[in-house]
């Protein structure tokens, strides 16, 4: 008698576990897959490269980037990522991480910024740019976004970014908002965050730069935005252009108070 009860119990437990297995949604499955990848995120490799590049003497002026002012004074690299984009008085521009690095590479190291901006992603100096952005993002991992909106230019950039986010264009006549302005939307198995409000810790703006497993590439925010325009079949406004930075301000300010997990890992 006792024996049959325990068999019954075991059978009961089995159906229970089968039931909970069936309950697992596709996105939970993807989350598990991501957690598995997290342990060996190849972004670490780019991070190490960026760290070395910071102190390495390079360029026509044979100088390092150690005196680069990323918003918290020359040479400060901890915590700058979560406060960018912001207004810089010396250039008179609102700048994001990558455009500010471009400025430093030109003024300190003597590189031709326009030339680097024209270089395709993943080629030449753009490789170093991404590595630097990856390392700098990692130096602010876990910190909360806190973008300044004190300057008029920063406020203007937010408004411009918002309009660009909703501006429809291209042969498919869609905007960033077509995919990223609604809760619970997805493309195939990819959940699409709603970026018109705070998407939460480590989502959207707080997840780039990220390593993309599917193509083995490290992407910065600029390349991510470029990809949005590519999917929109709309011309890319250009690397470190005001339009891309304005979108960065819009996304960054919306993520106010959310923690950064960059460099993240993506499918």
């Amino acid at each position, binding site marked *: 008698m006792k024996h049959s009860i325990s068999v019954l119990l075991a059978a009961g437990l089995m159906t229970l576990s089968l039931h909970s297995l069936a309950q697992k949604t596709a996105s939970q499955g993807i989350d598990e897959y991501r957690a598995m990848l997290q*342990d*060996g995120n*190849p972004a*670490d*490799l780019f991070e*190490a*490269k960026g760290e070395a590049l910071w102190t390495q003497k390079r360029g026509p002026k044979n100088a390092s980037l150690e005196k680069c002012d990323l918003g918290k004074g020359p040479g400060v690299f901890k915590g700058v990522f979560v406060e960018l984009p912001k207004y810089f008085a010396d250039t008179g521009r609102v700048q994001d991480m990558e455009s500010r690095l471009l400025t430093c590479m030109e003024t300190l190291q003597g590189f031709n910024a326009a030339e680097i901006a024209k270089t395709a992603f993943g080629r030449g100096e753009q490789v170093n740019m991404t590595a630097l952005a990856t390392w700098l993002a990692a130096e602010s991992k876990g910190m909360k976004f806190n973008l300044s909106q004190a300057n008029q230019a920063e406020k203007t950039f937010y408004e411009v970014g918002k309009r660009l986010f909703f501006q429809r264009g291209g042969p498919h006549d869609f905007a960033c908002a077509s995919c990223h302005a609604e809760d619970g939307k997805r493309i195939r198995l990819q959940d699409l965050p709603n970026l018109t409000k705070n998407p939460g810790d480590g989502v959207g703006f707080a997840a780039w730069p990220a390593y993309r*497993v599917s193509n083995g590439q490290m992407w910065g925010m600029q390349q991510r935005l470029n990809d949005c325009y590519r999917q929109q079949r709309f011309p890319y406004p250009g690397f470190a252009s005001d339009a891309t930075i304005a979108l960065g301000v819009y996304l960054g300010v919306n993520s106010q108070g959310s923690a950064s997990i960059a460099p993240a890992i993506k499918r």
Partner: protein
Amino acid sequence: MADPMRIRAQAAGDKATIRVLMSHEMESGQRKDAAGKTVPAWFIQEVTATHNGKPVLSAEWVPAVSKNPFLQFAVKGAKAGDKIAVTWKDNKGDTRTDEATVS
């Protein structure tokens, strides 16, 4: 010269878990470039690991392994302070060795 590996070695109980990230293109030889030409295969063929100089792992890899590969294995009897060295050699003869101390 190849980029360095990232090796993390952590002791727990009577063994140490070693996690290695290698920086390599791992080109399969199956892909074609924009001009339609086959991109030549370029991948890690041999991976070896030593524990205080004594071989503990030897593997033959094929092009099916991903770009920037991640390798995890356990070494029995490895304690904090021990040295773990990992070496890879690719089909072009390029090689890289990095060492880590078990913590």
